[in-house]
């Protein structure tokens, strides 16, 4: 039992001195400028051609997927979609800096991370069409992906809940002696939830190897970030928790990659959390249920369109001689065709048998759910036309 003196390291002062926000002024890491040129004297992170191209291709793929799915929603083929247009670099380039064993906990706008891990077009489609090939068994709304094999935790809608969960997951990885960390994505809006506070503070105190990755994209649905917080973004909060913090240009794939690489190194070697705030912009509507013209101008969007991370990376790749324009065009076109073909196939796949309505509530089916299922099946047999998606398969 050591003696404590929680004043020991505190300096004193003898006149009232209000500390204001101004003393924090967290700079933003940028490696590629808005034209895709290297910023003077920038240190380029260690990145192979292969990884750089994979980042690029994944961003292009996601752009295509997002566009197609928004169109599909307009046609009434899926009920809901949520695009990451303009902010692909944040998810894709950060995921590229991870190890395969690192767990990803995402908010919902990180389809890029999932695609980078190898989620296939069919997998995306099965989830979005809630069919029986969806590993979630069609139980959640479109975009709530999850894949055990890819170490990608199934997404859950309540915002911020994954933040303390990520701390706990990372603590478990550490205790199990795993050479792996957890990365936890969330928006600047979700960072207002009490769970954010709990998650960061616990990770700092309990030394959890976790990267908190905040996409500060300027909006939470219609709420602009200045109505979300009054401080210096989310990064300034990290310091209050004693969490090492990096702010990064979220539309700069190299900066995101480098920052995440470094953060991962710190998390795994020092067994501690790192907070990354990626400054970006949600060019897309919040979701297909949203229309941003009600709360922002086209001008504002255009300013950000000019910071497109895909264009930026293309220019840099080109400057390295790694970019093949024609081949890229062809890849994009192929992606478009693949998405359409997959959509056609997966939208026709049946939903799960009705029996799945009661499984996975508990590890084993308890008596009352057995009774409820039996009752339901008898009822469906009586009114097959009322339940056309399952009645044909009820025995």
């Amino acid at each position, binding site marked *: 039992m050591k003696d404590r003196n929680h004043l020991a390291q505190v300096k004193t002062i003898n006149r009232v001195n209000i500390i204001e926000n101004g003393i924090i002024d967290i700079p933003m890491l940028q490696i590629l400028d808005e034209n895709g040129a290297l910023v003077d004297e920038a240190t380029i992170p260690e990145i192979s051609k292969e990884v750089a191209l994979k980042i690029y291709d994944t961003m292009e793929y996601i752009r295509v997927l997002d566009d197609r799915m928004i169109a599909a929603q307009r046609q009434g083929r899926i009920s809901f979609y949520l695009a990451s247009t303009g902010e692909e670099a944040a998810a894709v380039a950060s995921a590229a800096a991870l190890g395969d064993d690192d767990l990803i906990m995402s908010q919902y706008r990180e389809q890029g991370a999932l695609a980078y891990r190898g989620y296939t077009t069919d997998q995306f489609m099965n989830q979005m069409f809630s069919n029986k090939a969806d590993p979630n068994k069609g139980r*959640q*709304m479109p975009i709530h992906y999850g894949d055990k094999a890819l170490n990608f935790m199934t997404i859950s809608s309540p915002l911020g809940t994954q933040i303390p969960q990520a701390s706990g997951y990372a603590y478990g990885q550490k205790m199990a002696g795993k050479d792996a960390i957890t990365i936890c994505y969330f928006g600047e809006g979700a960072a207002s939830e009490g769970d954010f506070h709990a998650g960061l503070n616990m990770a700092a105190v309990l030394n959890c190897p976790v990267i908190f990755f905040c996409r500060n994209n300027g909006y939470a*649905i219609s709420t602009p970030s200045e*109505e979300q917080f009054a401080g210096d973004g989310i990064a300034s909060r990290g310091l209050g928790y004693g969490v090492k913090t990096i702010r990064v240009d979220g539309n700069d794939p190299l900066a995101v990659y480098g920052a995440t690489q470094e953060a991962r190194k710190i998390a795994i070697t020092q067994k501690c959390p790192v907070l990354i705030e990626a400054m970006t912009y949600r060019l897309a509507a919040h979701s297909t249920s949203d229309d941003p013209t009600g*709360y922002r101008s086209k001008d504002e969007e255009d300013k950000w369109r000019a910071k497109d991370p895909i264009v930026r990376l293309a220019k840099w790749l080109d400057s390295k001689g790694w970019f093949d324009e024609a081949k890229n065009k062809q890849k994009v076109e192929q992606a478009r065709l693949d998405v359409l073909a997959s959509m056609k196939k997966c939208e026709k796949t049946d939903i799960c048998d009705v029996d799945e309505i009661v499984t996975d509530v508990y590890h084993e089916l308890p008596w009352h759910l057995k009774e409820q299922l039996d009752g339901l099946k008898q009822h469906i047999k009586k009114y097959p036309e009322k339940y056309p998606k399952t009645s044909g398969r009820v025995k």
Partner: protein
Amino acid sequence: MAKMNLLQAINNALITAMTENEKVMTFGEDVGHFGGVFRATSHLQEKFGKGRCFNTPLTEQGIIGFANGLAAQGSVPVAEIQFGDYIFPAFDQIVNETAKWRYRSGGQFDVGSLTIRTPYGGGIAGGLYHSQSPEAFFAHCPGLKIVVPRDPYQAKGLLLASIRDKDPVLFMEPKRLYRASVADVPEEDYELPLGKADLVQQGSDITLLGWGAQIEVLQKAAEMALNDGVSCEIIDLRSILPWDAHTVAASVMKTGRLLINHEAPQTGGFASEIAATIQDKCFLYLEAPIARVCGLDTPYPLAHEKEYMPDETKTYEAIKRTLHY
């Protein structure tokens, strides 16, 4: 009279309340300039200024904590929780604070002016987290009132009464009815009573009890039953807490049978309280067990939404079972 859908009726009630009393303030996520994700607070910021209609940061526990303080101060907060599914981070503020404020202070302080509005319920392809009906979680909490309207007319009258009521009210809006249909709604100010059930349809063979969007389901089932010559009495409970057991008991003493329908899972749903109370009050009148037609005891599924819901055919079958017990 004007034609309004349920959302417009809500919006109209808020305008009425805010015009009449400048202490009324409305806030929540995206509630300000944008008017809320369902647009229930459309144009309120324009009309009443940013001080009285505003966005909050994204924190339900904060919204209700803030609203509690504001109510204790003497203002009249109408706080919006964007979806009923997201009310749980505020559970502590509601159950330990809102509900107990007056009691713990011996009546010195209270947050009776608080109203919490939230959309609830399924039928909109919302899956686990955009479909829940959480009324029963709050119905076990003395100190709260819980109110659910079934149509635009009820919505305006009940919301105005809730805002002005001297107790905190959780006002739950059946979101699948938001734009489902329009009805005649008086443009002037009016209130409908809290704590009073509403007799929707008289009948003699069985009492069907529900609230919110499920009243429609009961009506459809009653029509099916009518074809068999069964006469259903339909009651809209309207207030879940405190609830009008007397009206229900009187009806059951007449019909001898009771069926309760709600969307929430059956176990521990509010139908259980009603059944427990009515079997006590009407023991000698009951000709069959009280029937519950409810959501399954599972999270709310997406692909199997139709199968999950306590719909009219399930209700109709339960009516028959009860009649032929």
